[in-house]
């Protein structure tokens, strides 16, 4: 399953999510939206909006599932970790 994480470098829940995924040995593609610039940043913001309906982080995409926030239980359920 492809796992993608949209995060902000400043966000405590994003850090928790990253830590959790790393500890669980999950491979994921990370986009730190606040560290992007110009058109790339705008494109990432638009992507997050279209996926989650908002601009709040973290946004974890695992297959068809979208998890906003560090919801440990849902991440476990979805990833089967």
């Amino acid at each position, binding site marked *: 399953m492809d796992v993608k994480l949209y995060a902000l470098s400043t*966000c405590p829940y994003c850090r928790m999510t990253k830590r959790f995924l790393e500890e669980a040995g999950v491979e994921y593609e990370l986009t730190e939206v606040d560290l992007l610039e110009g058109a790339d940043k705008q494109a990432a913001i638009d992507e*997050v909006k279209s996926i989650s309906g908002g601009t709040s982080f973290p946004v974890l995409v695992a297959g068809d599932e979208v998890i906003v*926030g*560090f919801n440990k239980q849902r991440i476990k359920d979805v990833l089967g970790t």
Partner: protein
Amino acid sequence: MNDRPAPRRRFAEGTTVADLEAYMVPFVRHLGFKLNTEREFAHEVLQSEIEILDRDGDVYCPCRVRTGDPKEDIKIICPCIPFYLEQFNAMRKCWCGLFIREDVLDGAEMMGVIEEPEGPIEVRAAHVEDIAASRGLRVKIGKREIALFRTGNEVFALSNLCRHAFGPLSEGYVEGYEVMCPWHGWRYDIRTGHTDHPNADVQTHPVTVRDGVVFVTVPKPTE
């Protein structure tokens, strides 16, 4: 945006976590919130805000991204509670969990999951003493206009809009348990929303009063 010139810094150089705490906590108290009881966590969030202040000029929410549109971005300057009050009341915390509702005892429960609950929620609406005895008080919860009325120790909440011509019931005349619409005198029972005019009762909402604060329960947080 990162490719723009650095914006004007809104706080003095050398602002610390303790300074932010001292400035924010008395303000959020007016909104029914307090600092998360998990102090280490609260400190981590505020420390992130200091980093954001140094980079972006103001204390933007660490969990949300600036869009570059100033009108949107003012809504994510911490504390952002006034802009999301219904949602945060429903979640019982602000988005990050830096602030939690006064009635939450254990802030640890409020960390992590950030999803808005479905279904009815209780929202802080007013102080009892804000409601004049012979008049109502108009409050807005989400998109709803609600009229609060008080008789003695009892407080009632009903839709503010008279079903006749949408007159504001909160400005009506109260006699006992009855309010008369200020526009044409239609009468409603403030306990039940009932009127003698056919099919024209107004919606009522459950009310509880705790420590002089009026809480109204509405069907959904953001409707």
